[in-house]
């Protein structure tokens, strides 16, 4: 008996609720979100592919200093009143040890010093690592970092191929040679004129 009433109640509420349910992904929300996205592209001249590239370059850069969650890193434009801001949200998994950071920086310096000695310096670093105390963690770290680099290189290659622009040097040193193709333009400053009429 109770079931029947519950069933009936559900049916009735469902009937009256139908109009409300469509609001979950309402046409208005879809329009707003699509519009916001397309306006960001219009205002900044940054296509989704370029945005993706910028994001990966930022991951490359930031990974040197902190271990971050690449999946959850979020890069987007936000409009606050008249000012457009580039918002970067970076979930940090853990802080890196000072020695790790220094090593990566050292490696980078060596790489930039001489491309011919690249292989040697890599070996040197590997040797150094084994002599350190916590080698296990270091090794795992290192492998993960190299993963990052691989990932981003393939990404940036894809993008450059799409754009049929500079796809040359990137393979050897992703961090060094990635050109800054487009910086987000300072965008238009609104507000200043909105007052009159």
């Amino acid at each position, binding site marked *: 008996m109770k079931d029947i009433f519950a069933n009936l109640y559900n049916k009735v509420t469902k009937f009256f609720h139908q109009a409300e349910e469509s609001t979950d992904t309402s046409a208005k929300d879809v329009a707003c979100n699509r519009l916001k996205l397309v306006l960001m592209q*219009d205002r900044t001249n940054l296509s989704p592919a370029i945005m993706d590239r910028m994001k990966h370059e930022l991951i490359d850069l930031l990974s040197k200093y902190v271990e971050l969650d690449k999946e959850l890193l979020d890069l987007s434009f936000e409009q606050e009143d008249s000012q457009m801001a580039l918002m970067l949200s970076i979930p940090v998994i853990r802080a890196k040890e000072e020695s790790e950071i220094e090593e990566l920086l050292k490696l980078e310096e060596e790489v930039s010093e001489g491309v011919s000695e690249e292989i040697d310096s890599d070996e040197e670093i590997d040797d150094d690592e084994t002599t350190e105390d916590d080698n296990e963690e270091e090794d795992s770290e290192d492998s993960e970092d190299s993963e990052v680099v691989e990932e981003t290189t393939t990404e940036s290659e894809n993008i450059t191929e799409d754009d049929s622009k500079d796809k040359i040097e990137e393979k050897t040193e992703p961090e060094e040679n990635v050109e800054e193709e487009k910086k987000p333009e300072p965008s238009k400053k*609104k507000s200043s004129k909105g007052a009159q*009429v």
Partner: protein
Amino acid sequence: MAGRVIVITSGKGGVGKTTTSANIGTALAKGGNKVVLIDTDIGLRNLDLLLGLENRIVYTLVDVVEERCKLKQALVKDKKNPNLSLLAAAQTRDKSAVSQEQLKDICSQLKEDYDFIIVDCPAGIEQGFQNAIAGASEAIIVTTPEMSAVRDADRIIGLLEAREEIEGYKLLLNRVRPNLIEANDMMSVDDVVEILSCELIGVIPEDTGIITSTNKGEPIVNDEEAMAGKAYRNVARRIMGEDVPLLDLTEPKGFLDKIKAFFAGLKGKV
């Protein structure tokens, strides 16, 4: 006298620039101001039709520019309101018949004798648009709560920002349908204002009266009852510096709607 030159623009076509120009111009004139409406949509003129002045046009903007007549000869007085005049566009030429400098010159001449010069801008962002904004120091951007119109309005705002001559601009949201907004099927006034981050000068509801008023050549501001007319009169008052609150466009709720809302609320709690 130093009149104000206000350009009515939108980017996208069909959002109601010409209707807005005709109605704001008429309402300002009814408010006791001396007003000239300039149609800069050369080749596609329509402002004369909306005002019901199509049979009275002798000289056009192009005739003035090419010195076939004096500026004053080309101004056509409104049938009802002697404060309102129209400078019509030529129908047989194109946008290149007039230059930015020439329009600037015409606007500055008219500023001497009139309180308001309302420039009806053609759609697009090409020469016609550049001409129309050349002499203006203020702008009203007409848009509707549709994606394409809002996107185009954003582009126009960017272009107006880049022009130093434009001292201020405001947004006029046209063809708003409160019942669609309530059902979350259409972007709301707040949504559009937030997305464009531009100050509002008014909100005009969709009104079938616009169609009949266009057919009759009689701007809807002359209709005391129509909601759109009321909304346009309020826009004109805001332009004149009055602080007028936005019209409440929501229709009163019926009994059935209340029951629906009640059950929807119950469902949320269970």
